[in-house]
């Protein structure tokens, strides 16, 4: 955030966590550290019960992100929409805080007349177009996800088309959980090219457990490590609030 970068974790899962720490607690912590956690639940065709819906929403809420539960075939549009909206929301949060600074602590966007609001929206959109985006994709590869993975891959490739159409930079990395020995396995290190994920899911071994909490914790660590690294030599990028347009 501080560096003009929006940092997200995008969690794709098809059910409830059933092992390890509480993912909601971890998401709360992640938000505290300046990340936002978006969660997309993937349903089987014909399964209307939306398994694990409560938890999916709760994780996103705790993590300051967005969530949705969809059928595998709707995944592409949902993934890009959730990512984009979450990004706007993060930036909006920053702008709103700024409004509070300027107008007083209990003021919000809605206390501004509609005409003034439009100017702010333009600022939010401008920042959203130009900000850097670091997005860690965390894919549940428990056994029930097996038939959904081709759709997941398709949706991620599609997400790359959308995000790469922005002016700002994007960096992606891809993790699966549960890992062979660790909570997560890295499928793709930080890269501006998400296209290189093609075939990444082939190597995966399926498991019965869904340790969402521990996986989120690892994802958070990956982000924090990168943030520390960047702080070392990228101070010149400036913060959000100093970007052109504000």
């Amino acid at each position: 955030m501080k560096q003009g970068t929006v940092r997200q974790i995008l969690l794709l899962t098809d059910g409830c966590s059933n092992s390890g720490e509480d993912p909601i607690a971890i998401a709360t912590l992640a938000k505290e550290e300046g990340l936002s956690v978006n969660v997309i639940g993937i349903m089987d065709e014909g399964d209307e019960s939306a398994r694990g819906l409560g938890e999916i929403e709760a994780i996103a809420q705790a993590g300051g992100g967005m969530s949705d539960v969809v059928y595998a075939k709707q995944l592409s549009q949902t993934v890009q929409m959730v990512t984009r909206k979450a990004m706007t929301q993060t930036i909006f949060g920053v702008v709103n805080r700024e409004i509070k600074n300027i107008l007083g602590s209990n003021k919000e966007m809605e206390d501004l007349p509609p005409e003034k609001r439009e100017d702010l929206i333009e600022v939010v959109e401008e920042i959203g177009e130009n900000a850097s985006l670091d997005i860690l994709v965390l894919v549940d590869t428990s056994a029930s996800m097996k038939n959904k993975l081709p759709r997941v891959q398709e949706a991620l490739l599609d997400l790359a088309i959308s995000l790469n159409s922005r002016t700002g930079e994007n960096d992606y990395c891809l993790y699966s959980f549960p890992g062979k020995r660790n909570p997560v396995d890295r499928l793709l290190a930080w890269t501006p090219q998400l296209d290189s994920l093609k075939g990444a899911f082939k190597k995966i071994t399926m498991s019965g457990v869904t340790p969402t909490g521990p996986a989120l914790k690892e994802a958070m660590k990956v982000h924090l490590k990168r943030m520390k690294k960047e702080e070392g030599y990228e101070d010149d990028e400036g913060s959000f609030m100093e970007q052109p347009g504000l």
Partner: protein
Amino acid sequence: MRDPSWNNRDYSFYPGQVVKGKWHGNHYRIVRLLGEGAIGKVYLAEGRGGLVAIKVSRESMSVSSEASTLRQVTKVHGVTLGPSFLDMDDVITKTGVTSFYVMEYIKGEPFLNFLREKNMEWLGILVVPLLKDLYSMHQAGWIFGDLKPENLIVTAQPISLRWIDVGGMTKVGRAVKEYTEFFDRGYWGMGDRKAAPAYDLFAVSMLMMNRGYLSRFKREEPGGIKQLMRRLRDRPLLDPYAPVIEKGMQQRYKDALMMKNDLLNLLTKGETFRHAPAVKKPVKSSPVSRQKKKRALPKERIFKGVLPTSAFASFLLFVYILYLVG
């Protein structure tokens, strides 16, 4: 989409409800729900000057964003087919503050419904004015983005094409805000989602394809121009338009005007459509001017709160509207 942490409130209105704007003080009586999209609802309502369409959303931000876009785009010289922007405000209800914006109500038939019962030349006749509008929009630095039949309405008397929904409109050079897979060149592997005139023109080609495939079709790996061209050739119905559709899909048009001219040439060649001359006339002559008059009115309405409008003037306005509508 569920967005738990951000402006998530009940944003429904009910028929008969009087919505009173907090900032501008205008009243609107809700008549009925017109339609519902991914993020919002559109209601038919009665304002001071007549029927209007009101859009609400659970995201106050997207209401502001759309209102701002609609206001800007409909101001562009040469852009005449959108609903005019009338008002934006907040209403205080039991559940909190809901933002809404008010626009001209466009009464008509969905694009494909209208075309289904008509000869094929009507497709071109309606797309020509669309391309003119797009040209002006593009010149001003805006892209329509989410171009699809659901966002096009055909009005009667005179028959004319109008567009609604500015949700996808994006400034040239930015990432397209909203799109629908069938009309999206990114989905077909035919380019990125950076807002550019060619992005819209690809969608116009797919719009015409949609006339031949009413329930659309999906991408078959690897997608791309091969699949699209095969589909185009498979529909004799589309034959007359095939050259234009193909060129638009391949994004070989420099701008919307070139595509419009090609289309116009097709339509006026004479041999292409058997009944063409008989039906073309009313569309070409009257709709533009009539439409402009209609569109001018609502704008005056916004200022009624500000200007000292006498009862006499509003009576005249009322009679004038009756004259136009009737």
